C-alpha cells in the first residue's frame, strides 16, 4: 500500500516489514541469512523494526567460507554483541579440510564453500524458511523470482514452475522437506539501499568507505590484498590506492572501485551517478549468461 504522503522509502520499509511478520507468523523455523554486506545490514535493521519491542523471533546465519574480508568478520562479531542476537556461523568443514580455495578451484569453490555449505546449514538446523537480502534489480534471474521462493526437497529452485504470488497473499504452506527462501528486499534498488542507510544511520562494514588500501589490478578488477594468502600472478604488483567496495564477499573474488567517497553522502552521490552495475564487482557473475540461475537451481541463495 502506497499513499501519496508516504515516501518511496517508507513504502519499501513497510512492505519489507509486512513480509517479515508474515514469515514469523506462518513459518515453523525461520532463519535470517546474514552475509554482513549492506543489504544484510538493512535487512537486519528492518527485522529489529518489524518486531520491536521484541527482538527478531529467529536466529541469524552466516555462511563463512574462510575467505571473507577480515573487517567483515570483526563487524559481524561486533553486531552480534551489540544487538544481543544469536548469529550461527557455519563453514563447510569438509571443504575447508580439503583446502578448497578461490584461487585453485574457481566455480567449484563457490559451489562447495557457499552453495553446499548453505544447504548443509539449513538441513542441519531444519530451517523451513530462510530470509535472504537479494534484490530483483541485481540480476536478470533474480528479477523473475517471487518474494516467497520455493525450494523442493533437493533445495533447488524450479524457475519454470513458480507458485503464483498475488497481491500480498503469500502462500507459505510446505510439505515435509520443502523450504522457502524469502526476499523482503525484492523491490529495493541499490540506490534505495544507500539512501535508507543514510536516512536510518545504519552501521556498515568500513570497507564500503573509500580508504587507501593495498590492491592489485587483475582482469579488469581491483582486488584487495587482505592477508598473506593472496597469490600474485607474474607481473602483478601491490599498489596503494584509494578504493571502496560496492558489494562484499570473499576478498579474492570481490572487485573494488577507485573512489574518494569516504562518507555516506558521497557514496550516495556516486551511486546515483554510477554507469556500471554493482554486479561488475562480483567476479563469479562474469561467467556465461545464466550462471546465477544455474547456481540457484543447485541451491545457491
Amino acid at each position, binding site marked *: *500500500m*502506497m*499513499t*501519496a*504522503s*508516504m*515516501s*518511496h522509502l*517508507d*513504502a519499501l*520499509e*513497510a512492505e519489507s*516489514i*509486512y513480509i517479515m*511478520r*508474515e514469515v*514469523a*507468523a506462518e513459518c515453523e523455523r525461520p532463519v535470517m541469512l546474514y552475509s554482513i554486506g549492506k543489504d544484510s545490514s538493512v535487512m537486519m535493521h528492518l527485522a*529489529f*523494526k*518489524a*518486531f*520491536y*519491542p*521484541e*527482538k527478531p523471533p529467529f536466529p541469524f546465519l552466516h555462511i563463512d567460507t574462510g575467505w571473507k574480508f577480515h573487517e567483515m568478520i570483526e563487524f559481524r562479531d561486533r553486531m552480534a554483541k551489540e544487538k544481543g542476537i544469536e548469529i550461527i556461523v557455519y563453514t563447510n568443514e569438509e571443504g575447508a579440510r580439503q583446502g578448497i580455495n578461490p584461487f585453485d578451484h574457481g566455480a567449484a569453490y563457490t559451489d562447495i564453500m557457499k552453495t553446499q555449505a548453505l544447504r548443509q546449514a539449513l538441513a542441519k538446523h531444519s530451517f523451513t524458511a530462510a530470509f535472504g537480502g537479494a534484490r*530483483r*534489480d541485481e540480476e*536478470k*534471474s*533474480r*528479477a*523473475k523470482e*517471487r518474494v516467497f521462493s520455493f525450494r523442493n526437497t533437493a533445495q533447488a529452485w524450479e*524457475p*519454470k514452475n*513458480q*507458485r*503464483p*504470488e*498475488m*497481491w500480498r*497473499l503469500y*502462500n507459505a*504452506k*510446505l*510439505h515435509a522437506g520443502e523450504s522457502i527462501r524469502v526476499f523482503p528486499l*525484492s*523491490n529495493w*534498488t541499490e*540506490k534505495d539501499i544507500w539512501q535508507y542507510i543514510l536516512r536510518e544511520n545504519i552501521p556498515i562494514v568500513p570497507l564500503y568507505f573509500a580508504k587507501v588500501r593495498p590492491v592489485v589490478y587483475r582482469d579488469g578488477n581491483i582486488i584487495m590484498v587482505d592477508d598473506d594468502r593472496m597469490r600474485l600472478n607474474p607481473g602483478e604488483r601491490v599498489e596503494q590506492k584509494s578504493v571502496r567496495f560496492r558489494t562484499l564477499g570473499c576478498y579474492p573474488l570481490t572487485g573494488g572501485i577507485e573512489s574518494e567517497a569516504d562518507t555516506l553522502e558521497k557514496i550516495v552521490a556516486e551511486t546515483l551517478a*554510477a*554507469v*556500471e*552495475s554493482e554486479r*561488475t564487482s562480483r567476479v563469479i557473475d562474469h561467467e556465461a*549468461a*545464466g550462471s546465477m*540461475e*544455474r547456481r540457484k537451481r543447485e541451491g545457491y541463495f
Partner: protein
Amino acid sequence: MSGLLKFVACGSVDDGKSTLIGHMLYDAKLIYADQERSLKLDSKVGSAGGKIDYSLLLDGLMAEREQGITIDVAYRYFSTEKRSFIVADAPGHEEYTRNMAVGASFANLAVILVDVTQGILPQTRRHVKICSLMGIRHFVFAVNKMDLVDYAYEAYERVEKAVKKLAIDMDIAEFTAIPVSATEGDNITAGSNRMPWYQGAALLPYLETVDIDPAPETDGFVLPVQRVSRPDATFRGFQGEIAAGAIAVGQEVTILPGGEKALVSGILSTDREVAQAKAGEAVTLRLSREVDVSRGSVLAAEAAPEVTTMLAADILWMDEERLSAGRQFWCKIGAKTVPATVLRLKYRLEVQTGEKIAAAYLNKNGIGRVELALAERCVIMPFDKLKALGAFILIDRVSYHTAACGMIRHSLRRSDNLTWQQTDITREVRAADLGQQPKTLWFTGLSGAGKSTLANALEKALRSRGKHTMLLDGDNIRLGLNRNLGFTEEDRVENIRRIAEVAKLMNDAGLIVLTAFISPFRADRQNAREIIGGKDFIEIYVKTDLATCEARDVKGLYQKARQGVIPNFTGISSPYEAPDNPDITLDTVGKSPEEAVAELLTALDKLEAAQRG
C-alpha cells in the same frame, strides 16, 4: 501525484512487450554500461543481422532465451527525473496466464501491447479482462510494429477503433492509445517524426505524467492483525500494516469478528512511539484492556468490514486440475487462512464475448463467479472497497499449490444467522455416558478388497467388547441419504462430504463409526479427515491387489467394467489413489476374516495407547 508508478506490460505473445520495455530503458539511458555491453554481446550471438535485441534485457531465464519467449513476469526498476517506476513484464502465452496475473495484481496501470498488423487478439482481450478484474483502472494501448505498416495512419486508425470498442465492452473508463515501434524506437521515449499525424505524448513522457488517483478505498480505519507480540507479561501488541484510514491514541476500535470494543492505548510506528498513524504504516497497537485478538482478527473504526461465512467472488482458476463445485481449499484473506468450500459455480465468463455461461467446471485460466463457504466467520470487504480484505487465494489442500485467486464482490447473507448451537450436553458428556472414545474408522480400498466384510466383522468384535458402534456401508447410503447423487466428479465429492458429516454427528453422539467406501481419491479422504477431525479419524487401508479383487468379483462388477458396461470403475477405468500414510494398513491376502480382525484390534489398541501418550 504519487512518485512511484507500478505498471504491468502485457498483451499477446510476440506483440513485443519485452522489446518495448528494453528499448525504453536503453533509450532513456536507464541501463548500466556493463548491461549494455552484455546486451550487445548477447544480441550478436542470438539475433539475426547483429541488431540489438532489446528483449534480452528482460528475458532472464535460460529457458526463455532458448525458446525466445517470456515465461514468467520480470520486474524492472528505473527512475527518470520525474518519477520512479517498477514495471512488471508479463508473459503473453496463454499457458503462462497465471504469471501474467501475478504482474497485474501488483500494478496500478497496464500497458497493453497490440500488434498493428494483427489487431486485437484473443489473448489481448484475456489480458485486459484480467487486469480490469484485478483492479487496474488505467490502460495504455501501445499499438506496436508501426514500422511494418510504413507508419500509416489508416492502419493505426483501424486498430484504435477496435481498442475503443474493447474498452467499452470491458467497461474501462481510463485509456489512451499510442502508435509505437518497439524495435525502431518510435514514440517510446520521444515523439516520432515518422508519424506526424499523431499529436499525443510518447509512451515514457505519458507514463511520467499520468495521474493515478488512488483507488476509491474506504475511509475508515482497518488493521488486519498479522501477529500478536508479547515479549513479556507486561506488553501485548497487535502488529500489522494499516490497510485504510488513520488511528490515534485514545480512539475506540472494534475487534472483528468478535465485536468487542477497546481503546487504543499506544501506537508504535515500526519502532517509534507515535500519537497517530495512517494507511500504509507498519504498526504495533496496544489496547486498553484484555480482549480476544489473534492473527486474522481485524481492528476497525468507522469502517464497515463485514463478518460472514459465505460470499460471492470472481476467481481466476490457475490449477492444472479443473475446478468443480464441492471442492475444498484453504482460503487466505488478509492474514486469515481458513478451510473453504466452493459451493457453487454460478457461471463461467467467456472472455472473448463477455457472455456469462452456466458451467459445471472451470478449466485452467478460466474466469468465473463462485459462491464460497468459509469454515469460520471471516472479516471481509468487497474488493473494490478494500483490496486488503477483498482479495483472496485458494490453496489446494493436498498439493498446497495456489489454485486460484479471487476478488470478493459481496457477502451472502444466507447463513448469517446460522451459528453452531452450543448445547449443554456436550460431546464429552455423551462419550462418557457410553464409556468410550468416539472415532471414525474409515476403510478404503478397491471394490472387492474386503472393506464391508472386515468392517462388519470388526463391528461385531467391538460390540462384544461392549462398544457402541454404527456401520455406514457404501450401497446402503447410496440407496438412501445419497440417492440423488450420481457418479460425476461433483457428486463423488458431495457423497463423501455427506458421509463424513454423518459420521461426525454420530461421533458427537458418542458412537464409534465404521465406514466402508472405496473412497479412491486422496483429496476426498483428506476432506473427510478434516470434517471429522484429525484425532478422531482413523484411515484403514485394506490393501488387496487388483488381481485378487478381480478374481473374487463378488458382485460381478469387474466383469461388467471390463466389458465397458460400467464406466469410471475404480481400478479399471478410473484410478485408485492409495493412502500415503494410512493409520493402519491391512493386507488381506491369505488371511481369514478372524485373523484380519484380530490384527485390526491389536492395531487399534496400539493407536489408542499412543494417543493417550
